[in-house]
């Protein structure tokens, strides 16, 4: 175990080309999918938390169900839709990074929506009452609500990114873990472990943890600076 970690560190320091390729694919899939999920999920989550309309309860339940969707089910769904017998086969997206991103967005967006909805639903009544009492119109009330959501957006992004970077089920099914093309860190760790190549597996694991730590620290610092 100790020698494997030493070898892994040496591999990281040597800037191994395969390792860099896996790292690049991982960054592309995780960052793109988490940002897209944030752009879709935040407005939808705010609207769901702040507005009262017929069918809202049903939408909340559906979203919570989607939050718990197993990644392999999502992967299976996309595999069936885009495989040689699926309705979207002509798009030729199966085993591409693009489809991995789409599958990740579908998995992560409900998490963003759910977290934003919970946060906004808790503060909206009191905020709305005060703002309406002051005679503010809908537009100003909405802007004030968005202003209240700056910190939760940071936390929700962290959550989305963590889910994206650690996800393995869906990306392995729709990406196929093809070396030099769609292999990301999680799928590569599985592959190398199955082959008995623990050194590369541990190296990737270490990078995965370090990346997660880096993103968390960067966003926490930014959040602290904004709160001053």
């Amino acid at each position, binding site marked *: 175990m100790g020698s494997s970690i030493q070898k892994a560190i040496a591999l990281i320091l040597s800037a191994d080309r395969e390792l860099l390729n896996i790292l690049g694919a991982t960054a592309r899939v995780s960052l793109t999918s988490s940002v897209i999920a944030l752009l879709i999920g935040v407005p939808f989550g705010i609207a769901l938390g702040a507005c009262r309309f017929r069918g809202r309860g049903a939408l909340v339940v559906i979203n919570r169900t989607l939050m718990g969707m197993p990644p392999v089910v999502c992967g299976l769904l996309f595999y069936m839709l885009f495989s040689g017998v699926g309705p979207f086969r002509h798009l030729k997206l199966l085993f591409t990074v693009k489809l991995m991103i789409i599958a990740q967005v579908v998995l992560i967006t409900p998490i963003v929506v759910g977290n934003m909805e919970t946060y906004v639903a808790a503060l909206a009544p009191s905020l709305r*009452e*005060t703002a309406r009492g002051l*005679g503010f119109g809908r537009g100003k009330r909405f802007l004030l609500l968005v202003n209240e959501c700056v910190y939760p957006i940071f936390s929700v992004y962290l959550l989305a990114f963590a889910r994206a970077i650690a996800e393995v089920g869906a990306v392995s099914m729709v990406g196929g873990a093809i070396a030099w093309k769609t292999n990301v860190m999680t799928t590569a760790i599985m592959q190398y472990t199955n082959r008995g190549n623990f050194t590369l597996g541990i190296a990737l694991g270490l990078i995965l943890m370090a990346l997660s730590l880096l993103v968390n620290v960067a966003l926490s610092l930014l959040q602290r600076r904004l709160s001053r």
Partner: protein
Amino acid sequence: MRIAAFTKTYKGRLVLNMPETTLADGKITAVIGANGSGKSTLARVLSGIETADRKLHPLSGVAVGYMPQKSYAFRMSTERNIALNGGDAARRERLMNALRLQALGKQRAKKLSGGETAKMALARILMGRYELLILDEPTAAMDMESTLAAECLLADYCRESGCTVLLVTHSIQQARRLADEVIFLHKGEPVEQGETSTVLSTPAQPLTRRFLEFYGL
């Protein structure tokens, strides 16, 4: 100011049954009563936060300002929270000085204590111009010194702007100090309304008398 008759029902339970009522224009009317008598519901319906039964609005075409029991401090400085409601810088300064908020102007409003938040919220609502201003226990979280300062500001606001004020309060002493008229609510119905000195010293209704006896009046 005329308030049309209305009722308010929660889950089949009648919580407020208001006949047509008149508020003295440009004066302060205090609403007193025990817990659950419908004081806050009255304030919320008149301010439009809640709708009366059959979606009636008892006040139509009146510019209403409303300060809830627990006012929200927006994520910005105390000064900016107050400035949100318009008004000029001189007036803001005057209100902040009177409520001893000047040292907290640059501080984040979320970090204020309960009493300070109430003072900030009062200064904020007094920056606006309304025909009817409804305040739901605005001084409940304040100390005595701040309460007296807030009462002075409220009386000045009423006199200077000609605004009618409806003040929901638990404090009979506050009603006595500040209000021109009093409405006594009991189980969602106004039992007695009249000049403060008359209602509080020689109440006409036995229910009002019994309520005031609890306060040793």
